[in-house]
């Protein structure tokens, strides 16, 4: 059963904070990258393109851990572990939302050939000092 996120964790996701997403490489080793995040219907979401290693990894193995640090105070952080679902974003809606959230501007133009997806986290376990 996915967990419902507390107000404190939702605030971290909603804020202009950066997240580190950890996925599993084909050989079972860890891979990390940094992303913008958003709160959608109580879930953490982020945007990515099909060609990225994290997306290829997550399609093979949906297990993930997302670390979010509070930009105002890096000693406040949360670690959200769970699995993801990946859905197409053909209108490239999420990158526009996130670019406005973080930079108050449109994202740079992107070719229609570039396939955007929405990655949505289902949280199973929470660690860190913000729970």
């Amino acid at each position: 059963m996915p967990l419902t996120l507390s107000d404190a964790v939702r605030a971290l996701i909603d804020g202009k904070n950066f997240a580190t997403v950890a996925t599993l490489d084909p050989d079972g080793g860890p891979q990390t990258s940094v992303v913008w995040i958003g709160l959608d219907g109580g879930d953490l979401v982020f945007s990515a393109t099909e060609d990225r290693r994290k997306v290829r990894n997550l399609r093979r193995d949906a297990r993930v851990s997302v670390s979010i640090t509070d930009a105002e105070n890096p000693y406040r952080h949360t670690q959200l572990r769970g699995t993801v679902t990946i859905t197409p974003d053909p209108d490239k809606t999420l990158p526009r939302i996130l670019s406005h959230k973080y930079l108050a501007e449109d994202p740079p133009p992107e070719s229609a050939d570039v396939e955007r997806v929405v990655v949505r986290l289902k949280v199973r376990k929470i660690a860190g000092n913000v729970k």
Partner: protein
Amino acid sequence: MGVTFNEATKALFDGKNFPVIATINADGSVQTSVVWAKRDGDAVLFATVRGRLKERNMQRDPRVSLSVFDLEDPLKYVEVRGRAEITDEGGRELIDELSNKYDGKDFRPEPPEVVRVVVRVVPEKITGYAS
């Protein structure tokens, strides 16, 4: 000849930034946590405690991924994938050194059963803007 850090990567680990470390759990899933760290030549050092989840994970499987971004400009980030080498020697000295780097003072005293260890991450692959 091992993998070396370029100037941008060195700056990220030399600065007061908060790397996220990903390790592999016993069931093959991935977990993340936030650490203080310093650079030691072309390796990264951080301190943890024997018995903690990340330490047990690294003892079982030394493959790690460290991502760090510049708190002042989070779009500058680097991912270091490599292997962790763990030693007891110098653990307390390292946590004090890191505490001074980040907080300007020694770390709080810890009871003798808390065994601080040094984790040295030897990079095998570096990606991200700074690479």
